């Protein structure tokens, strides 16, 4: 099945009321739509997503309101998209009611005409769910996420619907609960059984809450790490641009690093000393020396074995020849207690040896060590204060904001780290339902379900369910392994082509994409591998569906841009639509044009409402792109000169800048 986007039209939304045509039937399956920053690229991406999958129950009020045109405040917004499915024309209209905050659809198809609802052919619908759409219509952030967090495995799980296994598991759990609720064998009192059931329900809720919170936190952590990476880059770039300050900062950081190491060593030394009790306190030392000396004086341990007494008790007669009576045996047992056992003898020998060895050393003064630590801590505070003064002195709002935000991110990452540590804590015997470890809660739940199983004589069902769940678990694991290995193989096959100068292979996909021989690649390397991953992941033998990417190559170097362009031009059969910023043209669009024999729609689109856009209108005029006075936007199609000379930071003639 082949799906192509022909055009779309917007009305009453946060993008101008325009129509954009990208008809690919003339052989141009690639479209580059260039818009200045803030003119609706991301909104367009969202609107396109909403057109192919029913989002009416997914979108929240705020999502819908964020699409409303704030200038005209129209109460209804419409996004109409014309597509071709196997050369048959379809039209989908998404209708946003900003009063009721609802989304509804109208579909026009070649057989039934116009009807309410989103009615795409069933053969397409089976592929198009939210996950598929959000991966095929994506922004570069998704590619970055594939190398952090669990985004890569999550994508596989969702697109290959491996989450069905978890759903089946849940059905099985629900079935067991239902059966347990229906039965009662009277093995325990009704009150006790009710209490167990109450506990079970509480634990099921807690388990669900924890899983949801973990998923939320994993996402948040991935986003924070990405944001931190970007802010670190901004911060470093600004520091590097101010040479004198950079030297001062480097110098200060070195001093802080030394002071931190010093302090760490101080604490480590203190703790290593405190772990030897004989050297930290004279009273302890005296007591231990006394112990060793007195045991020696008493000839403890002696080499008399208690085995002698054991043999004596077993014998029929005593050494003196009398028959062994019960009283005699009891006396021998009492005597045996005060004779060292072989085990005690062995341990005591070790203890005495250790005391002799350690007692020779000098007692330490921990108070002095602590004073030393306090001094080191003071030094670190001074260096940190000096470092902060340098940073505070940097007169750059962007820098200060980055530093401020980075501090907040670090604080939050610390909190999340604590959550994850607790989340994966191993079960103990004394766990309670208030614990926040998923392992502990799952363990408690299993124990409780088993108890209910015994009480309600449903152990058999429970055992069968456990067997099925084990099989499902194995199947899920094998499926994931199979898909992952297949993807890795396919990606690595393409690496020599997309990375001719620096072949970096994918080692594995374990939650995230893991690279061979390195912790991480550069942004460009990761983007190229990420693209490959998505292209291979979304490849469906029976479906040729458009790829739409928001800011496809922003922040990438020239080689990465041109290799991505080559991949799109030569190895992607699907229609490709890039929503780009002017700064993304170089080394990307030119390569695309070259590799496709100029079969690329070159579109420039911007609104003309804002005062600032007057300069853009004048620039357009220079390239014979004339604004229609009745319209509040300009769209230029395939005007190469304008496309390549379009810029947003135009200096005015009278500018003193």
């Amino acid at each position, binding site marked *: 099945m082949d799906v192509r986007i022909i055009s779309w039209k917007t009305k009453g939304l946060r993008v101008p009321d325009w129509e954009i045509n990208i008809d690919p039937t003339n052989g141009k399956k690639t479209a580059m739509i260039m818009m200045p920053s803030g003119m609706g690229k991301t909104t367009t991406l969202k609107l396109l997503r909403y057109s192919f999958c029913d989002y009416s129950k997914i979108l929240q009020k705020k999502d819908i309101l964020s699409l409303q045109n704030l200038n005209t405040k129209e109460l209804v917004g419409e996004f109409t998209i014309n597509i071709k499915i196997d050369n048959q024309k379809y039209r989908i209209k998404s209708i946003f009611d900003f009063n009721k905050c609802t989304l509804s659809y109208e579909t026009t198809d070649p057989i039934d005409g116009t009807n309410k609802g989103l009615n795409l052919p069933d053969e397409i619908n089976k592929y198009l769910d939210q996950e598929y759409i959000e991966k095929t219509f994506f922004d570069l952030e998704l590619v970055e996420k594939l190398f952090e967090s669990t985004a890569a495995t999550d994508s596989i799980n969702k697109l290959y619907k491996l989450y069905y296994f978890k759903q089946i598991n849940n059905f099985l759990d629900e079935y067991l609960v239902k059966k347990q609720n229906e039965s009662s064998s009277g093995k325990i009192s009704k009150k006790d059984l009710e209490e167990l059931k109450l506990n079970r329900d509480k634990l099921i809720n807690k388990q669900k809450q924890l899983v949801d919170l973990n998923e939320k936190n994993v996402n948040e952590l991935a986003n924070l790490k990405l944001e931190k990476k970007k802010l670190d880059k901004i911060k470093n770039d600004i520091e590097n641009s101010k040479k004198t300050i950079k030297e001062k900062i480097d110098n200060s950081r070195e001093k802080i690093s030394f002071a*931190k190491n010093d*302090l*760490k060593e*101080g*604490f*480590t030394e*203190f*703790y*290593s000393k*405190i*772990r*030897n*009790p*004989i050297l*930290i*306190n*004279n*009273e*302890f030392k005296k*007591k*231990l020396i*006394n*112990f*060793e000396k*007195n*045991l020696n*004086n*008493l000839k*403890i341990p002696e080499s008399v074995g208690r085995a002698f007494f054991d043999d004596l008790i077993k014998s029929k007669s005593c050494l003196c020849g009398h028959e062994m009576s019960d009283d005699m045996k009891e006396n021998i047992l009492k005597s045996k*207690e*005060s*004779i*060292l*056992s072989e*085990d*005690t003898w*062995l*341990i*005591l020998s*070790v*203890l*005495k040896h*250790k*005391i002799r060895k*350690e007692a020779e050393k000098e007692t330490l003064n*921990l*108070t002095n060590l*602590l004073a030393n*630590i*306090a001094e080191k*801590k003071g030094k670190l505070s001074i260096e940190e204060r000096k470092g902060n003064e340098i940073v505070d002195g940097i007169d750059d709002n962007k820098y200060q904001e980055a530093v401020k935000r980075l501090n907040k991110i*670090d604080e939050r*990452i*610390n909190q999340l*780290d*604590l959550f994850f540590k607790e989340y994966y804590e191993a079960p*103990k*015997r*004394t766990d309670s339902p208030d614990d926040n470890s998923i392992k502990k809660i799952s363990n408690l739940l299993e124990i409780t379900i088993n108890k209910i199983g015994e009480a309600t004589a449903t152990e058999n069902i429970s055992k069968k369910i456990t067997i099925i769940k084990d099989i499902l678990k194995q199947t899920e694991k094998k499926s994931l392994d199979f898909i992952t290995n297949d993807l890795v193989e396919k990606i690595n096959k393409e690496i020599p082509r997309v990375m001719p100068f620096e072949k970096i292979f994918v080692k594995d996909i374990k939650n995230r994409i893991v690279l061979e021989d390195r912790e991480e690649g550069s942004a460009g390397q990761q983007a190229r591998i990420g693209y490959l991953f998505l292209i291979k992941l979304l490849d469906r033998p029976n479906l040729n569906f458009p790829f739409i990417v928001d800011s496809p190559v922003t922040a990438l170097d020239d080689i990465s841009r041109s290799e991505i362009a080559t991949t799109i031009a030569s190895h992607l059969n699907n229609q490709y639509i890039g929503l780009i910023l002017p700064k993304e043209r170089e080394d990307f669009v030119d390569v695309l044009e070259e590799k496709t024999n100029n079969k690329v729609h070159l579109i420039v689109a911007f609104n003309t409402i804002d005062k600032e856009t007057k300069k853009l209108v004048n620039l357009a005029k220079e390239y014979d792109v004339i604004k229609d006075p009745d319209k509040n936007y300009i769209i230029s199609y395939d005007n190469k000169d304008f496309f390549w000379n379009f810029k947003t930071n135009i200096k005015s003639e009278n500018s003193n800048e």
Partner: protein
Amino acid sequence: MNRFQYLKTIKDNDKFLGMEILTKHIEFKKNNPTTMFSPINDIMDIFYLSLLVGLKHDKKIDINDTNYIRGDMTPNWTDNLSETKDILIALYVSHIIEKKDKNYSDKSEIQKILNQKLGKNPTRSISDEGMIDIHSYAFGGYLEILKNLNNKLPNDLLAFFSVINNLIKDH
């Protein structure tokens, strides 16, 4: 006792800071500005420091008292304490012997104590009875530490170790 245990909480005392809470507060955390210097890696470290304090001040509690809620830890001494355990056990048995027979005058009684308190398991080196004893001292010592921390989590590592030092140093 199959495992070492920690003092988790005290019944009807919501404000009680269990050993786990204190450990989490001061244990090593890579990105935390205060605890990135911490040499504490495990709750057993807190157990060890508490035991030292308990023995130094002869503070012990009845761990079978159901008001004291315990949690499980490791079955054996942690790597961090593997070099320490022999001297620690020696300190403990010498303390017990001195309490009963300060001058080491009754050999058979001393041998009896040693048999009772030292254990068959060479990795643990202490008997079940001895285990219960050292837990009594460790929990007693922990309560003493909390008292000296004014039942509040310490502001930083230095504050914590200063309290420990004051409790175990020679006076």
